[in-house]
């Protein structure tokens, strides 16, 4: 998947799904199935058609948000071919019904609220507040300069420091963010990509200062660079260079930080950029296969690192399609890891994922409606079997969330977990004719996309030619036009609109963060041992220059010597260069 492989695997798989559906073997009795099919046809002719002729339906065609055409109702004959194995129970291959044998009966999902803004002290305060309110995992958002690898005092950072996440320019800032937080007791997710290795090294640096062993650290850096080129577009170097650094992290963490998820393969941003559920599913898993190949090419055994790969999906408004997407993702991952990559350990086959409700589904009009949207999206994620969840706050179409809005969002998860009964029975929609049919359908469509990507030369070529980016942009435009024409309704935006202004106050981020961060990074540079920094950066440059070296070791030293993020990233830029995206208009 990383590059082109001329084989027929993907095409064969997509056919397999459709023939599987046509074959009547399965869990249903053949005769009963025949009767049900006849019954459905009779119903269509005698009950349904006369009815809709006199009382026309509201739309000429019904389809999912991804454009999958829908029947008015589903019956066993639509999933007649479902083999018993496809309906295997939770914790059993292919894990369609859940990766663990007891799911939420044994342990709730991790409620992980993404937060970060202003100075490290502001963020430290917010993280502590969330822990007090019962949150079980930390999740840190960074500002744009940090995401692109610029220090707070860089010209490029002007006006952007601390504005949509916390600013980190050196180890000093990470010390402040995690001050008083027991790193051996929490798990921390850091939404960082291009400089993920640097932030991993800084987190490890803070832990070392606290006297903790690296083996005890649990957490995740996003580090999914493939999806950066596809969707979020926060890169520094060309794709090959970033992949090489991900490889170094894979090798380092496999050895020294065994509980660290060094890549979180992310569909979230692919979806937010305007893709369909099918595209999110297909492009994300294709990226995942890319990382598997990266690890194998680096000489690791697939079973040594596949258990550390985790995923991050979006949950948006087409409730049933989202649930089917999560189920299909688990089935595809387990199947392909076993069949194509030869994984043997059960752990390697488990697609574990974090979910975030969709930011793009939120509206600034009538913002309290967003509480409802988020609740429904969160419910889909839970019914889809997520391992952790972030719920957006109702004010996030306008600004970073206030404490109150964050609390409502966290309470939304707690209400689902504690009050609705959704956690008592695993995969409660398993066996729904519609959801099972749609799971199969999304699975088949994903295989067709894998085939197209491989025909386009693999994921790297598909990125460099702009194929994937164009597919997403076209779908985003299609969705915008549908809302514009009223074909898709967004309540409060193109229907049931109201004139009054916004009833809520939003979080204000003062510009003091910039000033304080600039002062701090300058102080760090003035106080550190300059010779030590220079020598560490030189060693890092040499490692970057040597494709066989592992850059994580000198990186750890550079970070501990208080080399800044900007210095480290420019050392990389000097070796690897930068990247200009293909024209995707």
């Amino acid at each position, binding site marked *: 998947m990383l590059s082109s492989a001329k084989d027929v695997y993907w095409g064969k798989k997509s056919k397999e799904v459709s023939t599987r559906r046509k074959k009547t073997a399965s869990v249903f009795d053949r005769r009963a199935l025949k009767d049900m099919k006849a019954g459905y046809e009779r119903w269509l002719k005698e009950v349904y058609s006369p009815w809709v002729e006199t009382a026309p339906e509201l739309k000429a065609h019904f389809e999912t948000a991804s454009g999958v055409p829908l029947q008015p109702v589903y019956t066993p004959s639509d999933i007649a071919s479902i083999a018993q194995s496809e309906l295997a129970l939770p914790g059993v291959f292919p894990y369609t019904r859940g990766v663990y044998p007891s799911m939420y009966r044994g342990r709730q999902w991790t409620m992980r609220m993404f937060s970060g803004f202003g100075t490290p002290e502001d963020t430290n305060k917010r993280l502590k507040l969330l822990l007090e309110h019962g949150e079980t995992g930390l999740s840190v958002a960074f500002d*744009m*300069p940090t*995401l*692109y690898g*610029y220090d707070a005092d860089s010209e*490029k*950072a*002007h*006006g*952007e420091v601390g*504005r*949509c996440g916390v600013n980190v320019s050196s180890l000093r800032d990470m010390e402040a963010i995690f001050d008083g937080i027991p790193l051996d007791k929490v798990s921390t997710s850091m939404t960082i990509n291009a400089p993920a290795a640097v932030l991993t090294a800084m987190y490890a640096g803070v832990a070392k200062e606290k006297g903790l062993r690296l083996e005890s650290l649990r957490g995740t850096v996003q580090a999914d660079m493939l999806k*950066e080129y596809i969707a*979020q*577009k*926060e890169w520094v170097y060309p794709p090959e260079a970033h992949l090489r650094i991900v490889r170094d992290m894979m090798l380092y963490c496999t050895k020294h930080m065994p509980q660290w998820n060094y890549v979180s393969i992310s569909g979230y941003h692919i979806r*937010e*950029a*305007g893709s369909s559920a099918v595209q999110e599913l297909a492009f994300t898993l294709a990226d995942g296969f890319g990382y598997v190949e990266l690890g194998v090419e680096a000489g690791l055994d697939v079973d040594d690192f596949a258990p550390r790969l985790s995923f991050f999906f979006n949950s948006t408004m087409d409730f049933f399609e989202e649930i089917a997407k999560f189920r299909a993702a688990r089935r595809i991952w387990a199947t392909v890891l076993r069949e194509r990559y030869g994984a043997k350990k059960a752990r390697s086959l488990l697609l574990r994922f974090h979910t975030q409700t969709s930011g*793009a589904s939120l*509206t*600034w*009009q009538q913002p309290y409606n967003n509480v409802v949207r988020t609740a429904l999206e969160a419910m889909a994620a839970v019914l889809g079997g997520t391992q952790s969840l972030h719920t957006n706050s109702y004010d996030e*179409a*306008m*600004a970073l969330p206030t404490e109150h809005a964050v609390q409502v969002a966290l309470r939304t998860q707690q209400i689902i977990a504690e009050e609705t009964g959704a956690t008592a029975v695993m995969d409660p929609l398993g066996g729904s004719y519609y959801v099972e049919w749609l799971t199969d359908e999304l699975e088949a469509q994903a295989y067709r996309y894998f085939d197209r990507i491989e025909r386009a030369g693999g994921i790297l070529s598909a990125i460099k030619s702009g194929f994937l980016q164009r597919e997403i*942009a076209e779908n*985003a*435009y299609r969705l*915008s*036009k549908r*809302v*514009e024409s009223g074909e898709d309704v*967004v309540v409060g*935006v*193109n229907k049931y609109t109201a004139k009054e*202004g*916004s009833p809520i106050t*939003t979080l204000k*981020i003062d510009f003091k963060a910039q000033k304080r961060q600039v002062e701090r990074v300058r102080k760090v540079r003035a106080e550190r041992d300059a010779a030590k920094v220079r020598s560490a950066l030189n060693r890092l440059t040499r490692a970057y220059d040597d494709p066989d070296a592992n850059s994580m070791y000198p990186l750890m030293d550079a970070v501990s010597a208080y080399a800044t993020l900007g210095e480290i990233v420019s050392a990389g830029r000097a070796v690897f260069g930068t990247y*200009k*995206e293909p*024209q*995707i*208009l």
Partner: protein
Amino acid sequence: MRQRSAQEKRKIRVLVAKPGLDGHDRGVLVLARAFRDAGMEVIYIGLLPTPEEVARMAVDEDVDVVALSLLNGAHMTAFPQVKRLLDKYGGKDIIVTGGGIIPDEDKPRLLKLGISGLYGPGTSLEEIVGHIRERVRKERWAE
């Protein structure tokens, strides 16, 4: 600078850009397509240009409009900067519009600088296209 015939001038030329560290390009890519389908000539500068690069390209390409989008909260720095540089490089009469996540209290200052539109997510494409057409008709085509 490229000179255009009178007829050519009836086709609105728009430069769409995200000046700054912000890769969230869904909005600009959708707008670029909407402008194109509305019969405009669209130039997209690509990601991560500096305000300097945006202003220079706008002047070089002799556009009628620069349509800016930012979702990272840096609009109060980046938008005025683009406007200032346009003035400096001889693009004083180029129309500047903006959009993204722009809080109400920021709008008066931007409007005062002549940066209009300031649409948020969910604004109808027709409204944005209409706004651009109207400003061009009034400010660029008034003879």
